């Protein structure tokens, strides 16, 4: 299902013409109305008139998360406060949160892009959307809500938590689409099983899952446990919330809505723009936002970009499933590693439970990573030797795949905390100054 064929299937040349027109407008606007950008442009010696092709993008300065924090709360808005109709913020576990202010038109844009996401995953007006993303300041709940309403689907605005009730309603309301984080989808499956309800037999058929990095093997696990097609959705509060990019059933990258968000991949260390297919940090420029308008925002997410048209009919570029956030990258004894890469190896172990946690400790000056995995009857043995062999096998697979020696410890079931939203995969016990 393609929600907006005109833009989603636009020939590249036409799309680039549109992008350039919008980029010119947006640079003009931020220069005029956001003192922060005016100063940044001046410092770099660049002016809106210097933008004459998309290639001129690299003349513009980057925007970073810490700059957004400094602008807290309304410092970076590109529209006067009287035109703002809604606020959202990042979770902001450390320091001040990042604020996104939406004008009325921004909310219309947001509805449009999340409607595209849901359609891309197969949603129509007939669907019953079980929206278990958190409602509130977090963008997940309302973002999906707006898109679902535009499509005319029936939304259950259930938000996160009270999982037993979620399962009951899913069964009674005959929900067809689940929207939540991948880790919460797994938790719903676990609770349903305890309640004696087989989700695979319910009408639920698609999951639009996002807000945290998840691996390909985690997808398989979710699909088999819930009996659904699990598709990835991407977005971030700073840009708009969910609705920046969406995976189609081809499961080969996420279509980025380029008429609204202009993507680049850069080398996170040098800032140099990388070519198609090269891995680096995703940078986004909002082309149509009014409230919060960002130029070359460094998302901190690691991905790569593919401009080949997709079999689904969309001409929009695709970003590869996010590998992780630069902030989440662990450097352990010189090896760079993302938690999602370890997850991918763990989920390859036949019948392993998808509940794991990484513990990082410093022992005698060396960082050591221990993977804790919950046991299940399927992998447990009454013989010590076999349990130890399993631990060794997991450690070996991780070492062979990722080149890092880790400890593996099996733990009792349900001892790893379940998440209603974004899962906390890493416990850092290092005592750093």
């Amino acid at each position, binding site marked *: 299902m393609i929600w907006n064929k005109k833009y989603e299937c636009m020939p590249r040349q036409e799309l680039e013409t549109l992008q350039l027109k919008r980029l010119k407008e947006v640079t003009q606007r931020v220069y005029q109305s956001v003192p922060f950008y005016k100063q940044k442009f001046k410092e770099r010696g660049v002016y809106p008139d210097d933008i004459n092709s998309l290639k001129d993008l690299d003349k513009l300065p980057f925007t970073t998360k810490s700059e957004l924090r400094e602008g807290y709360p309304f410092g970076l808005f590109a529209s006067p406060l009287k035109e703002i109709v809604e606020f959202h913020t990042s979770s902001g576990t450390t320091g001040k949160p990042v604020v996104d202010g939406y004008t009325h038109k921004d909310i219309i844009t947001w509805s449009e892009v999340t409607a595209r996401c849901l359609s891309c995953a197969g949603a129509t007006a007939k669907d019953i959307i079980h929206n278990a993303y958190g409602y509130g300041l977090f963008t997940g709940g309302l973002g999906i809500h707006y898109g679902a309403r535009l499509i005319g689907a029936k939304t259950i605005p259930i938000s996160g938590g009270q999982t037993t009730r979620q399962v009951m309603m899913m069964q009674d309301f005959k929900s067809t689409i689940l929207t939540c984080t991948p880790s919460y989808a797994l938790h719903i499956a676990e609770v349903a099983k305890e309640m004696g309800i087989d989700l695979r037999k319910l009408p639920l058929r698609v999951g639009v899952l996002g807000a945290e990095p998840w691996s390909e093997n985690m997808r398989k696990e979710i699909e088999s446990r819930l009996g659904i097609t699990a598709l990835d959705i991407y977005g971030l509060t700073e840009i708009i919330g969910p609705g920046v990019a969406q995976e189609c059933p081809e499961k080969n990258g996420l279509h980025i809505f380029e008429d609204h968000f202009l993507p680049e991949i850069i080398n996170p260390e040098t800032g140099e723009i990388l070519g198609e297919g090269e891995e680096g940090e995703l940078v986004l420029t909002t082309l149509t936002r009014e409230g919060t308008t960002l130029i070359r925002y460094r998302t901190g997410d690691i991905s790569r970009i593919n401009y080949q048209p997709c079999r689904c009919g969309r001409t929009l570029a695709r970003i590869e499933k996010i590998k992780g956030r630069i902030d989440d990258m662990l450097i352990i004894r010189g090896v760079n590693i993302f938690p999602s890469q370890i997850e991918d190896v763990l989920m390859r172990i036949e019948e392993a439970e998808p509940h794991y946690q990484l513990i990082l400790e410093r022992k005698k000056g060396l960082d050591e990573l221990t993977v804790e995995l919950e*046991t299940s009857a399927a992998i447990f*043995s*009454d013989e*010590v030797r076999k349990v130890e062999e399993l631990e060794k096998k997991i450690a070996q697979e991780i070492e062979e795949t990722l080149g890092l020696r880790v400890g593996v410890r*099996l733990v009792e079931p349900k001892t790893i905390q379940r998440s209603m939203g974004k899962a906390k995969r890493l416990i850092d016990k290092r005592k750093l100054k």
Partner: protein
Amino acid sequence: MKVKQISVFLENKIGRLAEITKILGDKEINIRALSIADTAEFGILRMIVSQPEETYSILEKSGFTVLEAEVIVVEVADKPGGLAQILEIIAKANLNLEYLYAFVSPKGRNALVVLKVEKPSEAIELLTRKKVKILTMREIEKL
């Protein structure tokens, strides 16, 4: 005449074993024999209980990882060389002995030994032929 043994995965944490024995005690399940194999990180509790099926489901519902395995319980004369005689039979048949643990019957004079062997059916046949007394589940329940 295989007997069902229940094993449970235990992290080395204070009070876990107490918790299990309390759960079973509350349900009036009798533990006939018990052994713990432990490493620095975890332990495996193995038990012969009066109602194995019930024990399995209670412990699973209480959130433990539980496994059912088939073992052989033999009677061993309580005298020097009693156990050796049995182990010799198993070794001669080239059957792998995974582990064993012993307990004493409150009624009899003999020791009871739980054996986990590689091919239990073969071992039973062999031991029966050598006139070793093998206990049935019913006999264990009556102990």
